[in-house]
């Protein structure tokens, strides 16, 4: 395999890694945001607590996306 092919496969791998890795966090954060908004509409006096818990849950759902970002960066620049 020539070096150009290796470089091209590397770009392809980073793209696939990031693209598939972003699906999970997107679905998870969408669900979290949807249910938080629903609960806020039902009980507006709870909005502050809900917002705080929503941000924590978002941050945790995002973790796998961050991992795939790190793997993509490693594929592109480190390995």
């Amino acid at each position, binding site marked *: 395999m020539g070096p150009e092919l290796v470089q091209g496969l590397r770009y392809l791998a980073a793209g696939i890694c990031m693209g598939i890795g972003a699906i999970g966090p997107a679905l998870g954060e969408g669900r979290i945001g949807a249910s938080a908004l629903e609960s806020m509409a039902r009980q507006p006096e709870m909005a*502050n*607590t809900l917002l*705080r818990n929503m*941000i*924590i849950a*978002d*941050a945790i759902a*995002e*973790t796998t996306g*961050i*991992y795939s*970002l*790190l793997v993509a*960066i490693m594929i592109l*620049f480190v390995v």
Partner: protein
Amino acid sequence: MGAVFAIGKDLVLRFRLGPISGALNPASLGTALGLSLLLLGLALWLRRGIPKDPEAPPSRRLLLLVVFLEFVEKQVLGGMPGKLRRSLLPLIATLFLFILACNLSAVIPVPGMVAPTQDLNVTLGLALFVYLLTHLYGIRSKGAFRHIRGYLEPIPVMLPMNLVGDMGRTLSHGFRLFGNILGGAIMVAVVLPVMVNLIVRVFMRLLGDFLGPALASPVILVVGTGAGLLLNGFFGIFSGTIQAVVFTLLAAAYIQVAAE
């Protein structure tokens, strides 16, 4: 993209002390030290604004301090018992201010300056610091024996799982801040040249015939600056503030879990 990684790669100092070899990034270290000095100056300035006489009418700096601390106490430490909240408030407020300053320094276009939170060493260091604090608060509130016995809950076989969980939690705590800030910086560095290039081509084609090149170039300058402000505003200021809040919220939550 060159700017982001060139700084990390070109300026790293490698050193060797006997058997230990290490590397140091003066760009992020210097920025972090400068921001610390700036925050220290801010703290001294605010401290001098507090009136000595407690009965005196509150000054503006005192009110600023009160508003900020009340924000942290209500928003970040909201669901905690009062005693723990009061003992955590100065620490969490300091952590929040430092990370916020680090994240916001990404939007200042000084050559050679990088946001310290783009450096994995900084964020992992902060995460390890929070991890040590969870043990400190756990031992202080429950005693060393009960704190260590907490790792054998619910059954002793779960000990490795609990240890791995601790490690994963701390690593993801550090990686989250690092990944978000570095990802934002890469997005700005990659998308901004493309956007500016596109704007220049489109506007030159459309406006060049219509207004003449002399009038078209200021319009392009304004639109390009607007694009830069938009990207930096979203990825630098908005995302940086959210991530600072998230980091401190999670730190407070971890410490609270250990202390209960």
